[in-house]
């Protein structure tokens, strides 16, 4: 089947394609969230060590995964935009940032909620939590930089350079924090390494992860469409679109 992918690299055709895809991804995300949450809260057995509080990991872990994946994907699109001067890729990168920041915040929030019953404190300077916090700062920096630049092309490119610098630094930051953590506190509580995870728990977490992916894709498409409209508002196709809808 020969699909002309390049056709969709123009904002106009991407706009209509995204319009068709958004409902699909949204509905799939909704179904998966319902199923995943049902499994997480009603089907999965109570953990004998951590009692009911552990159930927050069904949200926490997928959110933490998403926060990291989305940063990489964002940097990837930004890099493509920088290297090949493709406007659409940069727009997608800009659209990813808020969703990524949201998941990072969610991971921090749920981490704190989990920390209170587990460790007796809302916040512990655990290596993962700390890295997640720094990741949050990186997202905020990316968005703040793009927001401060009026010229969209400069915003795209400057954001791309920052995202790439971030990608180079993330492993260094992560290992630094990890080492710092082992130096300063002997016994750390790991968030994800629960000894044996029942397969039903794993299924729940997997479904929740896929739901997060679907949700992210839908959100990014919606936001990209908005960015396209904003940036191309003076073009012919947008004004025609405007006439059709009014």
């Amino acid at each position, binding site marked *: 089947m020969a699909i002309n992918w390049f056709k969709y690299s123009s904002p106009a055709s991407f706009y209509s394609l995204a319009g068709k895809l958004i409902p699909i991804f949204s509905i799939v995300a909704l179904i998966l969230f319902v199923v995943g949450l049902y499994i997480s809260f009603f089907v999965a057995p109570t953990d004998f060590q951590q009692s009911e509080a552990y159930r927050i990991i069904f949200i926490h872990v997928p959110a933490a995964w998403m926060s990291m994946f989305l940063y990489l994907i964002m940097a990837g699109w930004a890099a493509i935009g920088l290297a090949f001067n493709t406007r659409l890729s940069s727009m997608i990168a800009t659209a990813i940032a808020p969703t990524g920041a949201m998941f990072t915040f969610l991971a921090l929030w749920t981490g704190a909620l989990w920390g209170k019953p587990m460790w007796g404190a809302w916040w512990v300077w655990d290596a993962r939590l700390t890295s997640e916090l720094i990741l949050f700062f990186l997202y905020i920096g990316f968005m*703040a930089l793009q927001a401060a630049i009026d010229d969209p092309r*400069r915003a795209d490119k400057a954001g791309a350079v*920052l995202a790439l610098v971030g990608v180079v630094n993330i492993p260094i*930051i992560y290992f630094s924090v990890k080492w710092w953590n082992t130096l300063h506190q002997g016994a750390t509580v790991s968030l994800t390494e629960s000894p044996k995870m029942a397969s039903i728990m794993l299924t729940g977490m997997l479904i929740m992860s896929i739901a997060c992916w679907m949700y992210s894709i839908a959100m990014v498409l919606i936001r990209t469409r908005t960015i396209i409209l904003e940036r191309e508002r003076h073009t012919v196709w947008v004004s025609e679109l405007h006439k059709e809808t009014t």
Partner: protein
Amino acid sequence: MFLWVIQRDLLLAMRQRSDVLTTLFFFIIVVSLFPLGVGPEINMLRSMAPGVVWVAALLASMLSLERMFSSDYLDGTLEQMMLSPQPLILLVLGKALAHWMVTGVPLVLISPILGFQFDLQTDALLVLAVSLLLGTPVLSLIGAIGAALTLGLRGGGVLVSLLVLPLYIPVLIFGAGAVEAVSAGLGASAHLSLLGAFLLLSLVLAPWATAAALRISIE
């Protein structure tokens, strides 16, 4: 050529000595505020000292970042630098090194005296100075990227701190960690060699990213 840039920036700094001194006194004041905030208990101060000095160094270095390119940008010299037949990477490296000589070196020199305020032992004082010597150039090099990205933007000074401070974290961890390790009776060589590795890495990568950022900002 590379030397010309360094020489020029140092000359300018000499003509504008107050800028250099402001950064230095900012550093001294921030470090001196901590005992006033947490109390004069000497054991606690001793254990806090490396972190306090390092955080103050981070802030002091960051404070002067905005100036790195903006005055050249405003008077048109930066355009001339971009049009120089020399590789832009070299110019950027020269400017970052000049920034370090003006803001980093004074901090390195004054740090042992500040260490006395916190009752650090001689070996810890030495390692503090060495860790700053290795770490502050990294701050200037990474900071250059942020300064280049925010060139000419409104609120550039605050923005640059948001972009750059998270990237400073590894330097902070190993810089302060080196001093703590010595105070705890462990060797600091592992920390210092990692700081050295960061320095090499940023010497290679940061000028490249800064040059790219400058091209974007000036266009």
